[in-house]
């Protein structure tokens, strides 16, 4: 019993330490490729593979961190409350655009996966791709997707926005704070937001609001769609 407790404590403390250090590095440099979700995950996976440690052993400690995910999602109500003035200022353009983004993302990804002949499990896994990671994982779990694969796809959606977003905005003349913010926040969540910082403060606050709202809207719409249409 005691060795197991010690093992759990060791896993928890080393994960926390790794996260704190790499998060500091990311905050200092600000490159989206240094996001702790990428760096910490890659290092942990590498360590497990090199020392031949099964994932289940790692989860002896990891499960305690995972238990805090649900309450942390609830805490997102705090920034959404702080942004309530922006919600009411731009209510029509933001709400309509978020729903448009959700439908465009869902319909196109399902269409492509059906075309490619992908399995149902993969389709469920892909549906929450545009939501912020913690919500995407919980939605994926709920509808029968594979949460860790959903996280990979969430990252792909985020980096697509962060890398191609500025080019697309230029080509298609998406040239205001509202349109850029809503598009990035609702299609490419937090990773995309790292790029919005380079435009203006207003871009960023509309982006983070759109990210939060589309997570809530998606958590209601995606389970409905997956149960009744697929």
């Amino acid at each position, binding site marked *: 019993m005691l060795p197991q407790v010690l093992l759990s404590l060791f896993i928890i403390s080393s*994960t926390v330490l790794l*996260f704190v250090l790499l998060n500091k590095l990311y905050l200092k440099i600000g490159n989206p490729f240094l996001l*702790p*979700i990428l760096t*910490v*995950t890659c290092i*942990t*996976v590498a360590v*497990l*593979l090199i020392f031949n440690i099964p*994932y289940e052993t790692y989860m002896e400690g*990891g499960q305690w*961190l*995972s238990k805090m*995910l*649900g309450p942390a*999602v*609830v*805490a997102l*109500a*705090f*920034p*959404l409350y702080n942004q*309530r003035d922006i919600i009411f200022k731009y209510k029509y353009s933001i709400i309509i655009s978020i729903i*448009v*983004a959700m439908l*465009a*993302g869902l319909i196109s990804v399902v269409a492509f*996966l059906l075309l*490619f002949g*992908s*399995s149902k499990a*993969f389709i469920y896994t*892909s549906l929450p*791709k*545009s939501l912020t*990671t913690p919500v995407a994982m*919980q*939605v994926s*779990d*709920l*509808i029968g997707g594979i*949460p*860790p*694969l959903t996280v990979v796809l969430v990252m*792909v*959606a985020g980096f697509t*926005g962060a890398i*191609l977003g500025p080019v*697309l*905005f230029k080509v*298609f003349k*998406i*040239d205001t704070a509202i349109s850029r913010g*809503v598009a990035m926040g*609702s*299609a490419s969540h937090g990773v995309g937001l790292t790029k919005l910082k380079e435009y203006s403060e207003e871009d960023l606050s509309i982006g983070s609001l759109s990210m939060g709202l589309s997570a*809530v809207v998606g*958590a209601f719409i995606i389970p409905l769609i997956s*149960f009744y249409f697929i």
Partner: protein
Amino acid sequence: MDIIRTIAQIGIIILFYLVGEYIVSITGIIIPGSIVGLVLLWLSLYFKILNVKFIQKGASFMLAFLTLFFIPSTVAVINYPELLTVSGGLLILAVIISTILALVITGKVSRIIEEKEKQKKEGEHVTASSAKSIYHK
């Protein structure tokens, strides 16, 4: 003292989470319990049932560590080598194309709504000023 306050505030947030999970379990609705908790907390703050002072320290603390809490689940990717196969590659390709479409369509739609609203406001402005000029005559 600050630490005790932060821990107590995290306790309040966990309470909202548990209420959310409870509501989902008794009603059978298909939404994550955490989202129900989020909506309840937002409404409580908005209708001043709960002062934001009672959660802001706890919430900021939890959000600072948000990424840490999902890393263990992300590491599970180790159990899914099929991501490196052709069907995994197609899955990633579908997500890239779909994200590009969502970005462009959303940006364009939002731009058009914004333009319409601006025209409407300018229209109102014009009628207001012409009304004024009539009044002056």
